[in-house]
């Protein structure tokens, strides 16, 4: 069962309405479409998808990144797909000239489309199509100056934990808990799997689509034992604008995370500039190490400092001195989702204000929750 993806501007007074909609949503049918390729990997639509959603409004456009196959000459037709299968075709046009196997299109959300989460479909002239769930989130107005961001990390799907609840149970409980709050979107900062096995990614995706809010996902070191993460989630370094704020997502897999020599350092600067102007920039990554490439540190924490860096990896609360120690950027580390933890952060006019870490209900766990190794 896939929940429908209605979005309502969240505030404390709308929680009951949201809960009612969730109940109604559970009674509605799943998407009658094939999501991604049959094995869960991305197919034509490389972005947006349920880990890198487009956040848009009626009448506004968002970018679609298509991986070309043998249909390069085609003008693809893009549509938003509702839970009942109804399709709304979008105006679209190619953007830029790409040198690689990817092509970019600007798609415009139809004016009368209702708010909520939508599947994105692309059709070719021969009738073949690719669809990704929860790819496009339509808001009827700019997200307010105040909203709540949920942070979940280190869910480790597939981790063998004798005498402790299965990671999928903990992930499900965390999703239910976050869905029941007034969070407007959820950041999931890596180690979504234990060992980057294809089946672990598929199980993660199946649970991810229970979220009733947009989910921004980045990779962790456990997800990068091979190159499969890219097959399931595409780009490692990307950005999204949400109302007045920007989210900058980047990969930090290795010992020398965010190294100075590859393309990421330049991409981060380009994305950082693309997000200007914005009220707050929030960085999402899996971890920070003092050995992190200095070029990336200068870009993120010195020249145009991000306001908040969210990460996990340690399975613990932030310890004194941990995280980037540059002057302005604040850091939040949230303990592991596999241990039942998540955190809500109030994004206010005065700045991001992290709440104390939350935990799924005690009865979720067979035994008292404990901190696991990363």
């Amino acid at each position: 069962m896939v929940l429908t993806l209605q979005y309502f501007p969240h505030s404390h007074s709308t929680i009951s309405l949201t809960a009612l909609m969730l109940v109604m949503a559970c009674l509605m049918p799943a998407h009658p479409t094939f999501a991604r390729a049959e094995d869960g990997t991305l197919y034509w639509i490389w972005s947006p998808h349920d880990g890198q959603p487009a956040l848009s409004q009626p009448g506004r456009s968002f970018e679609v990144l298509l991986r070309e196959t043998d249909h390069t000459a085609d003008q693809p037709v893009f549509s938003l797909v509702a839970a009942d299968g109804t399709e709304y075709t979008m105006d679209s046009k190619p953007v830029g000239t790409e040198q690689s196997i990817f092509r970019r299109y600007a798609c415009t959300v139809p004016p009368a489309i209702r708010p909520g989460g939508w599947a994105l479909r692309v059709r070719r002239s021969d009738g073949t199509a690719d669809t990704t769930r929860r790819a496009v989130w339509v808001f009827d107005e700019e997200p307010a100056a105040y909203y709540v961001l949920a942070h979940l990390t280190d869910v480790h799907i597939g981790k063998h934990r004798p005498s402790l609840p299965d990671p999928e149970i903990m992930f499900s409980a965390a999703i239910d808990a976050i869905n029941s709050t007034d969070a407007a979107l959820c950041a999931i900062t890596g180690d979504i799997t234990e060992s980057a096995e294809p089946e672990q990614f598929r199980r993660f995706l199946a649970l991810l689509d229970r979220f009733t809010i947009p989910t921004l996902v980045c990779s962790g070191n456990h997800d990068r034992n091979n190159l499969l993460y890219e097959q399931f989630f595409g780009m490692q370094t990307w950005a999204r604008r949400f109302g007045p704020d920007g989210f900058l997502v980047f990969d930090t897999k290795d010992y020398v995370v965010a190294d100075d020599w590859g393309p990421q350092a330049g991409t981060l600067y380009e994305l950082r500039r693309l997000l200007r102007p914005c009220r707050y920039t929030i960085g999402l990554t899996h971890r920070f190490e003092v050995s992190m490439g200095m070029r990336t540190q200068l870009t993120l924490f010195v020249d145009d400092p991000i306001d908040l860096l969210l990460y996990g990896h340690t399975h613990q609360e932030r310890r004194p001195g941990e995280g980037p120690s540059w002057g302005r950027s604040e850091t939040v580390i949230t303990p592991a989702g596999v241990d039942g933890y998540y955190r809500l952060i109030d994004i206010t006019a005065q700045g991001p204000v992290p709440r104390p870490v939350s935990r799924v209900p005690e009865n979720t766990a067979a035994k008292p929750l404990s901190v696991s190794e990363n």
Partner: protein
Amino acid sequence: MTSIWIAALMTVGTAMPDSGTIAFISGEEQSKRIVTVYDFASRQCHTVGTGSHNGPPVWSPDGSRIAFTALVNDRYGVAVVNADGTEPRVLPIDQDVVDDPPRWSADGTRIACSILLGTMPPRFGIAVWNLETNAVERWGGETYPSLRAPVWMPSVGLLMAVDVESQQDATAKTLFALRDEAEKSGVLIALAWFPDKTLMEPALVTASEALPLLYLAKVPSERSAEWNLQPDIKGRQIAFESDMGGDREIYVLGKRGVVNVTNHPAADWTPRWSPDGKYLAFESFRNGRRGVYLSLVETARITPVAVSESWDCWSPDWSPDGKWIAFVSNREGKPSIHVCQPEDGDSELVPTASWALAPAWRPKGK
């Protein structure tokens, strides 16, 4: 282990050097990155690295050896190999090294590199190895809590030209001591790191002393973060990047004081001197995407070298005769090495393995 493979020749056009060698990092995953060399005469690639996680290669001044950071036996250290990959050795030290590139002294007998002294809070230091005795010592004394990214000054000429207001103050006394030590043992420039103050400033460093370079040059730098210190081949001027003007620019410290030689609101970084000391190749985002440009240092006139609206170009490095620039571009969808002649504009793909990064041209040798 050294392996040899023949590069694909069919993609090689006419605008390629007919001699010379570049070293670079090959491999997408950091854990699989390995130092490799490409020879333009034979058009062959040789894997010469050792261990895993190889960092950017740095040639010895005579072009006979290559130094790079690497993970060997579960420790991050500085590895040195001959140009053909033979006789690999890892320089001994108790601490992990940081991936700032190791730097050779002008006579090729010593190597300096950043080491990690602590993590919470992070602290860095400078290790200097004597390759003939295998001895290692920490440089910089106790002036700064954290020093990193050292580079050898090719000469002490610039240091001798530094003046101080009062011959009696503590800075002057330290400078005199530092000069004496530099004449005997050489001098490094490195970065003193104060992250809580968002400050990273260049310092002159000897075995037991360290002094703020920009302070001595009478340039206020209390609120800026410098990086990428690059002395020219004779040690008469130092290029570096800094946000002292509000955005990241490239400055040159030399006979005219400190001069901004890039001057654009988009970031300018990674300066590389031409062999004749007249030009700096650098990376800039002034065209929207990362590209390679030249600055004629005397006039700060800027010339594009490798710039595109559709792909990035970065990591420039000059051939020893100054006729070619090698750089990395993702024009083909993944980072590859290209070469071009600075005045030409057309670049040619060097047929190396996929994911080729951090090219370094082999010096002519002596």
